[in-house]
């Protein structure tokens, strides 16, 4: 009896072991077979409903066109993009294809040796010539193209047409060469537009030129100044061309005058909400959509990422950046490029994904799904994108005028210095912190800029 039982137990054990090993072998066999044919690429995009829908469409299309290739799309929160990239790099998992976002610009990426030289891949695919010269320069390092732009947006003025008409203020021009559209006109218009500013509940402010948006450029440039050189505007700053920041010039007269002008909007003329009010209004979205702001400075991304979502209930239009006292109207342009990781195990395939997204079918999907304008100078694409913009409620200008303003900005503007300076965060953070008392009216522009100059010294790069 006992022997019989032992035999049965042994039989059960043996058969179970057999079944288990068979069960194990089959999946492992399958995995091995799959591993031999499947290649996985990682692609990191900032989290955004429109951009991500585009990303998903590109992934689907690319995977279909490349059997055996799987794309893993990583979409960290828009404000956490830099952190996510940093942690992935630290854990040797740098995405095969990634973009620059926040203050992680082209020279930060190249100085840390993260990006692959794309010139050979672009040449082989015949795409090198499709990149406009200005972008080629912007995203090159030591003569080689390291990034390809997929997104480019100039700064411009957006204004509330209803308020302009209500207070009988002439509408701004749409021509970048109109020099009557200058800071004097802007200030006068802002004064006429401002009403009940002592009561935040009913106030209408003429202009919202949030100083935090101009950490380094734009307004100082209108005075022919720049904090990274003592000769002139941004064109004279080598820090914007890939060299380390070895000196700063925060206290030049142009810097002082531009800062004073901006601070006066809030503290002297009261045509702009105070910093506290700006912070509070911004917590719910762009303050311009409250309908209480006459003019605001925004970048092109505002159109698809904010206006299209907010669906303004008033009429609005866009105008060029105004001329400054030095007779220049240079503003900054927000550009983003895709890069292929230098450590990618599949650089050729990663470059193909980048090209598919920017030059291939992804280009059209960028317009229709992400509502973005591909920065490749293609007139047909621009028109298609313009149609998307003109479906945003409230837009009140002709298509020709819109084209003039937007394309004029793309041609004239200079890339955002925050995206150019190597490790610009230190400089940007110090600016935001140290200049706060100036915007609150507690310190003069001269004093604030002197403090800024002192604060920046510890961040100079060898």
């Amino acid at each position, binding site marked *: 009896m006992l022997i019989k039982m032992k035999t049965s137990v042994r039989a059960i054990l043996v058969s179970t072991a057999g079944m288990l090993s068979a069960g194990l072998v089959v999946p492992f066999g399958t995995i091995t077979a799959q591993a031999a044919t499947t290649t996985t690429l990682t692609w990191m995009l900032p989290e955004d409903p429109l951009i991500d829908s585009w990303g998903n469409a590109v992934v689907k299309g690319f995977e279909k066109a490349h059997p055996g290739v799987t794309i893993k799309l990583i979409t960290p929160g828009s404000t956490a993009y*830099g*952190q996510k990239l*940093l*942690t992935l*790099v*630290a854990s040797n998992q740098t995405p095969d294809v990634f973009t620059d976002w926040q*203050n992680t610009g082209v020279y*930060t990426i190249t100085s*840390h*040796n*993260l990006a692959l030289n794309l010139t050979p891949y672009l040449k082989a695919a015949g795409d090198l010539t499709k990149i406009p010269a200005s972008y080629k320069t912007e995203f090159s390092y030591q003569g080689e193209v390291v990034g390809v732009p997929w997104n480019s947006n100039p700064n411009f003025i957006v204004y509330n047409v209803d308020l302009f008409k209500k207070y009988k203020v002439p509408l701004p021009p749409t021509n970048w060469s109109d020099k009557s559209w200058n800071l004097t006109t802007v200030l006068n218009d802002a004064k006429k537009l401002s009403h009940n500013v002592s*009561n*935040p*509940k009913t106030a209408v402010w003429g202009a919202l030129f949030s100083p935090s948006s101009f950490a380094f450029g734009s307004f100082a440039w209108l005075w022919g100044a720049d904090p990274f050189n003592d000769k002139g505007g941004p064109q004279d700053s080598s820090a914007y061309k890939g060299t380390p920041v070895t000196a700063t010039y925060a206290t030049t007269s142009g810097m002082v005058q531009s800062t004073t002008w901006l601070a006066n909007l809030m503290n002297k003329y009261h045509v702009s909400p*105070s*910093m*506290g*009010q700006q*912070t*509070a209004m911004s*917590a719910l979205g762009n303050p311009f959509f409250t309908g209480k702001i006459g003019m605001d400075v925004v970048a092109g991304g505002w159109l698809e990422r904010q206006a299209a979502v907010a669906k303004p209930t008033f009429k609005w239009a866009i105008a060029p950046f105004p001329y400054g006292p030095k007779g220049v109207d240079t503003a900054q342009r927000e550009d983003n490029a895709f890069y292929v990781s230098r450590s990618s195990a599949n650089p050729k395939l990663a470059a193909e994904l980048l090209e598919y997204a920017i030059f291939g079918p992804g280009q059209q999907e960028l317009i229709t799904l992400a509502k973005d304008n591909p920065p490749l100078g293609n007139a047909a694409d621009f028109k298609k994108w313009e149609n998307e913009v003109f479906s945003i409620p409230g837009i009140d200008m002709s298509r020709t005028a819109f084209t003039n303003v937007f394309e004029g900005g793309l041609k004239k503007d200079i890339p955002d210095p925050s995206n150019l300076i190597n*490790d610009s*965060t*230190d400089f940007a*953070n110090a600016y*935001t*912190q*140290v200049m*706060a*008392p100036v915007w*609150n009216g*507690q310190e003069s522009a001269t004093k604030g800029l002197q403090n800024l100059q002192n604060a920046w010294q*510890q961040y100079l790069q060898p």
Partner: protein
Amino acid sequence: MRVGMSVETGVRPVSRKRVRAGLQRRLEARWFLLFISPWLVGFAVLTVYPMIASAYYSLTNYSVLSPPTFIGFQNYTFLFHSPLFWTSVRVTVIYAIATVVIQLVLGLLVAMLLNLRIPGMKVLRTLYYIPNVLPMAATSMLWMFLFVPRTGVLDAALHQLFGINGPQWLSDPRWALSGLIIMSVWSIGSSMLIFLAGLQSIPDELYEAADIDGARLFTKLRHITLPMLSPQILLNLILGLIGAFQTFVQAYMMTDGGPDYATYLYSLSIYQNAFQSFHMGMASAEAWIMFLVILALTAAIFKTSARWVYYGGGTES
């Protein structure tokens, strides 16, 4: 020869019972290790290893994007000579002192009120504790609206009650830290709960005896309540201090350390150095300085606690 000893050796043979007990203990130890091993593995991987790694990184120039290079104590030297480091220390110390005092005083006061025997007390206790279970990110957003100049609830109350306009709370360097300190009132729930548990464990006889002796409310508070609550005060003091030194979300979400570094709390400084400025080595050094400071403060508090903490059954060894 005593009974039970071996004839040859004179050594008492080990009884079967003791052998079984030894085996049982070893078996229990194995089971103990088996069951605790998930925690041990987690502790080793998620705590011990990062601590050792950060100690090493604190001695390196490490941007995360490039491999670390050993630089000895340069990060520490740089920090001790950096005005920004001392600004973050000053801001954090002020914040810690203010919030710990608020947590202790208000927490005790509210606990005493919630210890009264009146109808609906359970609901009130729950209401006071609710803010502690809310995510700090959501709470921070809420307080941003409360602090809106002129139209925010706080300013409206100041205007209604005292006829004054409040300051630019979060955008004025002179008021921003006060704003964050005021906000800490919101989270007195934890200390309140600990005090409440302590209050309920104080025997009624002590108060009855004091009543017979004619003791007044303040005398009872000073000579009965506070001494009997001293273990809870010690616990809240240490927890509050550690929590205050590690405060991050409020400063990150509401002020980003500004304006003019007025709310540049130490944890935010670590975060910015590590994840925004690519100075992971320096951030690791900052983290170690904070760890050692908290350790020293906790040790100092424990050392002095023998003098002022009373444990019902005698002093805690």
